[in-house]
């Protein structure tokens, strides 16, 4: 962790700073997407970039996600480092073929690296409805050749986005929009990156391990506080990167606590919890004192009305209850 004399900034500001600083540092970095230029992005993450870097480097595109991703890929073949913004990450599936078949397979098949970032606002809790709240990360975690990042703090968001821009591979970068202006955190004054593929222990504990990421990391921490009052010390791991997954940090923790609860906002079936369960069965079966448990969203689309969405989403109470049950083993 870099020592800081930095300031408290929002998650959104962290994204903005990362893009600004990377474009300042390297003229090969360009940004393209819907309304990223004059308007500064639907969430204002690219505010001011056009003013500074001009029309050639900040490109407003038509509503054509496949064209955005395809063009970014072509640019990356020329040595540029494009950042392709998806206005809402829900729309990334419009470019699914371009990402999973073209972009992801190039290095394996014909030795063509595609250094590009595909980023956008994701996640629920803001009553955006079924097409503006998605967590589609697992479609891509299932695609060899991609890297998938889903940070939870401003520090990580900035450091990981910078690392993503500098990585030689196509990186998907999910920004949980619930966190954009609700979360503040300290970032150092100077340049720094956070390594891709490394999880971090956010809270140490000895009774059980809670593995989470993005907005649910904060929910998990909140639940851990409540658990502590009842004498249960939960260790909370923030995955930060989903692909490649940092198995080592998970295994180390579970070998200590012997219990594992995975919390994610993604739906249950096919979520990362299932993958973690399999890893623990393969590599830490003898260390487990209880079943792997999951607290996730329901296996439904994200509903719109607040009572429905709140029922759909995990929350600290659900995490607390599951953790208490697991701690009894």
């Amino acid at each position, binding site marked *: *962790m870099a020592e800081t004399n930095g300031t408290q900034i929002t998650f*959104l500001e962290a994204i903005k700073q990362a893009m600004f600083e990377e474009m300042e540092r390297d003229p090969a970095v360009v940004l393209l997407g819907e309304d990223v230029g*004059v308007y*500064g992005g*639907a*969430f204002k993450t690219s*505010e001011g970039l*056009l*003013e*500074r*870097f*001009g029309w*050639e*480097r900040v490109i407003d595109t*038509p509503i*054509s996600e*496949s*064209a955005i991703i*395809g*063009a970014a*890929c*072509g*640019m990356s*073949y*020329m*040595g*540029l*480092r494009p950042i392709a913004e998806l206005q809402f990450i829900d729309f990334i599936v419009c470019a699914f073929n*371009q990402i999973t*078949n073209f972009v992801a397979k190039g*290095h*394996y098949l*014909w030795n*063509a*690296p595609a*250094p590009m970032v595909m980023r956008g606002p994701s996640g629920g809790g*803001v*009553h*955006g409805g079924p097409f503006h709240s998605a967590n589609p990360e697992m479609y891509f975690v299932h695609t060899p050749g991609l890297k998938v990042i889903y940070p939870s*703090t401003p520090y*990580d968001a900035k450091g990981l986005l910078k690392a993503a821009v500098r990585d*030689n591979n196509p990186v998907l970068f999910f920004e949980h929009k619930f966190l*954009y*202006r*609700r*979360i*503040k*955190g300290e970032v150092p004054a100077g340049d720094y990156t956070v390594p891709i593929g490394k999880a*971090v*222990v*956010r809270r*140490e504990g000895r009774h059980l391990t809670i593995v989470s990421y993005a907005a649910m990391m*904060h*929910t998990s921490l*909140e639940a851990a*506080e*409540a658990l502590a009052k009842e004498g249960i010390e939960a260790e909370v791991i923030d995955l930060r990167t989903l692909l490649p997954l940092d198995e080592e940090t998970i295994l180390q923790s579970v070998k200590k606590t012997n219990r594992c609860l995975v919390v994610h906002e993604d739906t249950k079936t096919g979520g990362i919890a299932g993958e973690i369960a399999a890893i623990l069965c393969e590599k830490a079966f003898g260390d487990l004192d209880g079943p792997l448990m999951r607290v996730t969203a329901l296996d439904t689309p994200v509903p719109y009305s607040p009572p429905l969405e*709140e029922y759909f989403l995990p*929350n*600290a109470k659900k995490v607390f209850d599951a953790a208490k049950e697991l701690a009894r083993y």
Partner: protein
Amino acid sequence: MKKELTRQQYLDLYYFMRLNRAVEDTMVKLFRQNKIVGGLYSSLGQEAVSVGTAYALEKKDWLAPMIRNIGALLVKGVPPRDVFMQHMAKYGSPTKGKDGTSHFGDLEKLHIVSPISMLGDLIPVMTGVAMAGRYLGQKIVTMTWIGDGGSSTGVFHEGLNFAATQKAPFVLILENNLWAYSTPVKRQVPLENLADRAKAYGISSYIVDGNDVVEVYTTTREAVARARAGEGPILIEAKTFRRLGHAQHDPAEYVPKEMRAYWEARDPITLYEKFLISEKLLDAKSKKEVEEKIDTLLAAEREFAENSPMPPPEFAETGVYCTGDECHKIRPQWERPIAEVTPPKSSVKAVWTVEGFGSGKSSGGVNAPIHFGDTKNSLEIPEAEAAKKNGSKASSKPPAKKPEKTAVTSGASRKARR
């Protein structure tokens, strides 16, 4: 057919068409000997399109072939052995056995982008290559091909529209061979001329006889020059015919006999030979020399390919990711001053100017409202406001041990309702 070409250009076009056909003839033999691992797709009768278009590009330009554009690859400088080894899934092939057919590329030397089987994806990709080339000051043109069938994909439209809005130096060859697998073009597109699609994007287009290599070449040369000069993307429809089935397995009995006979009588190589002989650019002796040159070359190339080993099985596990500089040094080739694209020179006024109406204002800065992100959960608002009134910091509950400082402002954590 006659245009003002140099003798060398006329003879190059002939050589590459003959080479294109001979390479594919060789592969048919290999296929019959069970030496081709997967399918074999033929461009028999379409050689003039592949050769005539690619021949209009300069060395620095970029192309991305489709499955029936072996001829374009040969013109660009791919040795026939690479084509053979790709089809035979050999370790020595450009993809070292990881993919087959024309699915390979070369970013460094030949400037070829590999196709994938999903049609149309190359259109935005080559648009991006063209945009990047322009940004770097390289003055390149990019080219790819699409069939009559592929012109109905969504990404064809997304890509061509984006290229048009960007005025990208990009030439798209719409190779209308009248059949998409077993379905005739009329059942796919209700247009007489597929070049009419260009009108929808406000770009220029040409229609050429795809079996007349001189017309294909001279038209493409003009289109490439216009694209390079900044006129934007250009679409060329080459009307031709797929003489064989979709691939070797397909006898294509759905094609009317009369239709096949018509196009067989218009074989692009036969037509061109007649022209060259009438122009005294070719005679029996020089024709034989070309044939012998190609036979000798391909015998050696085929032998090389057949002797290449199959890949070691564990090679399947390698190369999913680029591991960094030791794997690929990624550096753009700047051919313009970087100062032009960095501040202060790059800075602009960020407003749209609408002709006849002036300009708007730039948007509201960091405190501008954002789409959805500001929505407060109604249950959380009273507490947030209360916290404000009390002048206390938001109701965050910092965790006991915090390796990293993260303040959770009010409303950040969904409330545990217990």
